């Protein structure tokens, strides 16, 4: 059991085409692994019947089309609870969307199903993708399949795509969708030893994905190899008439760009990412990554991104501002939870009670911060200033790229996975600092990828981040491949949850 669920997409694709295995066999194996992994809290809804029907359809298609079948055909995946899937409960891990069943399908999932991918179920996450530890979920936290050596304390899988990361790392599915507003794909990927890719803003349609901060949100693949990220991104990406910010650009053949040859590429190392309090393990890993890329023939160049320090403060104005506006729609009228009213109470009480009962603490906090920074008298001081700083942050990257830099290498996170309940209890800002290396990438709209590159002294996974030029996901993944090949990360956590 678990052998098929543990395949990469590329391995499964090859074996499906040779007729050695069927999509149904892989799917059944995944469903059994999911059932055995209940303690991880990764899945919030399992769609077993749908999965088996989709697997049978994929097998029929593979038999009919053979090599011409799409790469994702017959590949079982998990879907973050932020994506609308027609008829399947979609709550963004919030009580306020209690039992919401979308009457429509998100573009990303529609494209995956069109290519024959198999839907296993919905994955846990931070409520409305607001969090870095999966602890703000209405369904309770997802748990990291990795544990520190000699320590059985439950660790966070990161967030907000914590369920996606836990499920992929624990071999419950071959891959998962994630979304990334400030690091929500890359940070959990780093915490669980998998690959997570955030595309260039506009590469993937946001239609049908529950909105958090619309100018920052992007969906992307979470997989167990760089090649798998290329395969899955191919299926997810492309212009969509339903998302006016999706880019009218052709999507290149990403997998064909994975040559592993990066000789002569110029890799920037930004000095501002050498932050105070960075752990020795992360520091050493970063140096190891530099050595690996140099070994692959890349040229290492010291660069400066002077406004890096202001990325998090700018993010915590812009993201809550957009969230306060996006989340105004949850009012108890059209879907989800509605509070019970006392006699004499009217519509304002209905809004206030519904939102008080339906939103968790972190979501409330961010909606109120957003409301404050957008309110009369503070709009210029906070919101407009943050948008100006955002321009400067993007300009930093533009100048680096204009000087001939092909990609930027940084750590993905300032630490390895921490324990549940360890951070942000008294001060929300403590949790925000987790995203210090990932947030600038969203503010600049650039592609970023987290690649598992090593382990710390306690055996926990560590990730490195590559940041690419706009629209150069293929080039970025090729450099990531060179890193992956040299890091030789040994992937699977020991399955304690089965004991």
């Amino acid at each position, binding site marked *: 059991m678990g052998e098929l669920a543990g395949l990469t997409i590329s391995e499964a694709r090859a074996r499906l085409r040779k007729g050695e295995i069927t999509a149904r066999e892989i799917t059944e194996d995944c469903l059994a692994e999911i059932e055995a992994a209940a303690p991880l809290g990764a899945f919030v809804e399992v769609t077993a019947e749908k999965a088996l029907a989709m697997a049978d359809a994929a097998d029929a298609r593979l038999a009919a089309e053979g090599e011409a079948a799409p790469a994702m055909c017959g590949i079982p995946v998990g879907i973050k609870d932020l994506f609308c899937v027609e008829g399947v409960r979609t709550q963004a891990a919030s009580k306020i969307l209690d039992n919401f069943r979308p009457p429509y399908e998100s573009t990303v999932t529609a494209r995956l199903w069109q290519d024959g991918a198999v839907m296993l179920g919905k994955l846990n996450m931070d409520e409305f993708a607001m969090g870095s530890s999966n602890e703000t979920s209405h369904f309770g936290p997802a748990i990291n399949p990795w544990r520190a050596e000699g320590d059985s304390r439950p660790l966070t899988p990161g967030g907000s795509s914590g369920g996606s990361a836990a499920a992929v790392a624990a071999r419950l599915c071959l891959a998962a969708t994630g979304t990334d507003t400030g690091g929500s794909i890359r940070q959990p990927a780093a915490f669980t030893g998998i690959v997570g890719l955030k595309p260039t803003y506009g590469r993937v349609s946001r239609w049908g994905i529950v909105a958090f901060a619309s100018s920052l949100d992007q969906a992307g693949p979470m997989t167990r190899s760089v090649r798998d990220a290329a395969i899955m991104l191919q299926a997810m990406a492309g212009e969509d008439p339903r998302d*006016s910010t999706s880019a009218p650009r052709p999507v290149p053949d990403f997998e064909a760009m994975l040559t592993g040859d990066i000789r002569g590429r110029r890799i920037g190392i930004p000095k501002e990412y050498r932050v105070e309090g960075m752990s020795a393990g992360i520091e050493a890993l970063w140096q190891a990554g530099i050595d690996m890329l140099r070994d692959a023939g890349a040229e290492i160049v010291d660069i400066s991104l002077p406004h890096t320090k202001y990325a998090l403060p700018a993010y915590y104005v812009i993201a809550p501002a957009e969230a306060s506006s996006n989340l105004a729609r949850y009012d108890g009228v059209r879907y989800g939870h*509605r509070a019970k009213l006392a006699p004499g109470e009217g519509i304002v009480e209905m809004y206030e009670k519904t939102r*008080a009962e339906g939103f968790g603490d972190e979501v409330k906090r961010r909606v109120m911060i957003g*409301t404050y920074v957008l309110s009369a008298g503070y709009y210029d001081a906070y919101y407009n200033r943050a948008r100006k700083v955002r321009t400067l942050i993007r300009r930093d990257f533009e100048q680096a790229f204009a000087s001939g830099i092909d990609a930027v290498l940084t750590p993905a996170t300032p630490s390895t996975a921490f324990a549940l309940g360890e951070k942000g209890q008294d001060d*929300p800002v403590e949790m925000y600092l987790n995203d210090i290396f990932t947030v600038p990438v969203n503010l600049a709209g650039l592609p970023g990828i987290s690649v598992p590159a090593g382990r710390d002294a306690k055996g926990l996974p560590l990730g490195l981040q590559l940041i690419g030029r*706009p629209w150069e996901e293929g080039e970025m993944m090729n450099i990531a491949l060179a890193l992956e090949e040299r890091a030789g990360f040994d992937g699977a956590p020991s399955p304690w949850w089965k004991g």
Partner: protein
Amino acid sequence: MSIDRETARKVAHLARIGVAEEALDDLARELSAVLGFVEQLMEVDVEGVEPMVSVTPMTLKKRRDEVTDGGYPDRILANAPMAREGFFVVPKVVE
């Protein structure tokens, strides 16, 4: 910028989120912590810098102003906490 109890109450009302009296002090403290953090933005010289409107330089797409979807009120109402005769039902709004 520090948020006091009264400002917290006002912001909560603007956001239409009910907050109990006894929770206002904690809320004010938490909001102040976040605003204290973003206060660093005031150090940045933004003279002459345009506020970002679109992160990828692109002109917003246009299309003909015509109906492209719809015509299925039952599906739209299927998730409503209260619906009747093809409408969402809310408490009385106009006296």
